[in-house]
C-alpha cells in the first residue's frame, strides 16, 4: 500500500507540473517584442533576426562577437528561409529580416518594401558547377541559358563528351535560383515542358553534383570544392571574388538584413556593427562572402548596375 501512495503523489505532482506549464503557456508569457532602452550611448535590449539560412552562419558569428562586447544586448538569430524573414519583418514580428533577395521580389504587395530599410551586409558570388567527368571548363552565357531552359541536353552540343546533361536546379523560391536566373536567363521564360530536378539546400546540391555523372548546377562560391566537382568559367571569366567586384562576373547578389524604417537602438547598433570593419573586414570573408565596401559597382532591386 505504501508504494501506492507514493505513486499517487508522483502522479498528482506530475499533473500539477503539467497544469502549471500549460497555464504559463496559455497566459502567453512568450518572448515579447524588443524592450530596448537607450541609456547614453550604450544600447541594450533584445534583437531577433530571422530568415535566410544561407546568411545565418555569418549573422550568428557576428552576433556572438557583438554580444561579447555588449553583454546588455541579446541577439537571437534564426533560420527559416528568406520568405519567412521578409514575412516576419513586414509584420513587425521581429527586428531584423534576413534575405538573399530584394524584399520587392517576395512581398505580396510590392509597395510594402518602402516600409523597410534595406541593409546590404555582404555580396555573394555564385557560379555554375559540374560533375568532374565533364571535360570542359568554360561555357558561354548563351550555352548556359540553353542548358537551363532545356534546349541543350547533351554535353557534346557545347563541345564536351557525348553525355546527357543532368540539370539540378534550385528550389523555385530560393535566392540562389533567383540570382542565377536574373543573370543567366535574363527574362527568357523556361518552358513548362522542361522540368529539371530541384533541390533546396546548397549542401545537398554539392553532394548531388559530385556524385551524378553529367550533372550541372550552381552554387555560392563558399560551397566550391575542387576535390569534389569543378566550377565553370562563363564567357572566359573565372568565378572569382575580384571579378565579382567589377561586375565582370555577372552572377552575384546582395545579402540583406531588413529592418523597419525606424529601428530601435539595439537593432540599429547591431546593424551598424554588421556594416563596420569588425565584421566586414574579417568575418564576411571568412564566411566566403565579399564585403560590400570592396564592390566597385552597385545594383538596385530591378537589376540596374551603376558604377
Amino acid at each position, binding site marked *: 500500500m505504501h*508504494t501506492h501512495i507514493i505513486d499517487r503523489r508522483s*502522479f498528482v505532482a506530475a499533473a500539477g507540473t503539467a497544469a502549471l506549464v500549460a497555464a504559463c503557456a496559455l497566459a502567453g508569457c*512568450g*518572448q515579447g517584442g524588443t524592450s530596448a532602452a537607450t541609456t547614453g550611448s550604450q544600447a541594450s535590449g533584445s534583437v*531577433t533576426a530571422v530568415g535566410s539560412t544561407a546568411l545565418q552562419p555569418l549573422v550568428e558569428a557576428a552576433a556572438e562577437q557583438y554580444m561579447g562586447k555588449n553583454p546588455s544586448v*541579446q541577439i*537571437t538569430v534564426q533560420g527559416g528561409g528568406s520568405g519567412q524573414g521578409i514575412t516576419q519583418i513586414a509584420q513587425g*514580428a521581429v527586428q531584423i529580416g534576413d534575405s538573399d533577395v530584394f524584399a520587392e521580389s517576395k512581398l505580396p504587395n510590392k509597395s510594402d518594401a518602402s516600409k523597410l530599410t534595406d541593409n546590404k551586409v555582404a555580396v555573394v558570388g555564385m557560379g555554375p558547377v559540374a560533375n568532374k567527368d565533364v571535360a570542359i571548363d568554360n561555357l558561354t552565357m548563351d550555352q548556359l541559358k540553353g542548358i537551363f531552359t532545356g534546349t541543350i541536353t547533351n554535353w557534346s552540343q557545347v563541345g564536351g563528351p557525348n553525355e546527357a546533361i543532368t540539370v539540378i536546379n534550385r528550389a523555385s523560391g530560393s535566392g540562389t535560383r533567383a540570382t542565377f536566373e536574373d543573370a543567366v536567363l535574363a527574362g527568357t521564360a523556361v518552358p513548362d515542358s522542361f522540368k529539371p530536378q530541384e533541390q533546396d539546400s*546548397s*549542401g545537398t546540391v554539392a553532394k548531388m553534383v559530385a556524385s551524378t555523372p553529367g550533372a550541372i548546377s550552381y552554387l555560392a562560391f563558399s560551397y566550391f570544392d575542387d576535390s569534389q566537382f569543378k566550377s565553370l568559367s562563363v564567357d572566359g571569366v573565372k568565378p572569382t571574388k575580384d571579378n565579382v567586384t567589377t561586375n565582370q562576373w555577372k552572377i552575384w547578389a546582395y545579402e540583406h538584413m531588413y529592418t523597419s524604417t525606424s529601428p530601435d537602438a539595439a537593432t540599429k547598433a547591431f546593424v551598424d556593427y554588421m556594416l563596420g570593419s569588425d565584421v566586414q573586414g574579417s568575418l564576411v570573408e571568412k564566411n566566403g562572402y565579399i564585403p560590400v565596401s570592396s564592390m566597385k559597382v552597385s545594383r538596385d532591386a530591378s537589376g540596374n548596375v551603376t558604377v
Partner: protein
Amino acid sequence: MPSAKGSATASARRADKAATVVLACIVGLICVALVAIIVGILVSGAGKLFDINFLTAKPEQFKEGGGIGPELFNSFYLLLLTLLISVPVSLGAAVFLAEYAPEGPVTTVVKTVIEALSSLPSIVVGLFGFLFFVLTLGWGFSIMSGALALTMFNIPILVRVIQQALEAVPRDQRDAGLALGLTRWETTLHILVPSAMPAIITGVILSAGRVFGEAAALIYTAGQSAPALDFLNLNLLSTSCPWNVWRPAETLAVHIWKINSEGVVPDLTAISNGTAAVLMVCILLFNVLARFAGRRLARRLTAE
C-alpha cells in the same frame, strides 16, 4: 484431409521445410541490413563519439572543430518538457478512455481523433506548430513551440500504450477495488495506475526514443539555431539561459539537417556522422533503460 497427427504428406512436409528456410533467410537478411545500418552509423561517427570537446563545445559557424554541446542539451531538455506535458495529458486521456468512457459516440469520436493525430505527417504537425505557436501565439521559434509540436506527436503513441497497459490489469483487481467501496477514481489512482506502471514506464521511454530523432516537426517550431548556453545564467528570460523555454533550440536531429543543408564548416561530414552516432547511442540507451526500468519495477511490484 489428413486426420491423424504426423500424417501430413511428404510434399507438405517439404513445403513446410522450404518455407521455414525462406522465412529464416528473410529475417536473416533484415537483421543483417538493420545491423549494418546501425553499426555503419556508429562506426562512421566513432571518432567523435568519445571526444569530450565535441560533446560539450558549441558549434562553429565556419571553422572546424565545432561541437554539439548546446544541441545535446537542447535535445534532452526538449524531450523532458515534451514528456512533462504529454505524459500527464496522455495518462488522463487514457484513463478516461479505459475506465470512464462508456461505449458511445463520445468515445468513438475521441478514439478517431487520437488515431487521426497519430496518422498526421510530422511535417504537417510542424507547419501547424509554426502557424499557431510560432506566429499566431507569437512565441517565435522556441523550445515551448517545439515541445508542444512534439507533444502532439507523442500523445497518440502514449495514449495507446497507457490504455493497453491499463486494460491489461486483471479484471478482479478492478472489481476488488470497487467492491471495497472505492470510487472508480480511487481504484484508478491506487490500484490500476500502480500496477500498470511498469508497462507505462517502458512505453514512455520507448516513445522518447521516437521523439528524440524527430526533425521535420522541429525545423519550423524550435528553430535551427542554438545560442551558446551559459549554465550559470539563471535569468529565465535570457537567450543564453539553458532553462529559458522561450529561446530557440536546435536539436541533434535538426543539427544534422542544418549542417548538411547550408553548412560551410570544413569538417562537416565528420560532425554530421558524429552527431548521428551520438543520437544513435542515446536511442540505444533509451531502449536499454526501458527494458531495465520495466523489469525492475515489475519485480518490485510483484515482490510486494
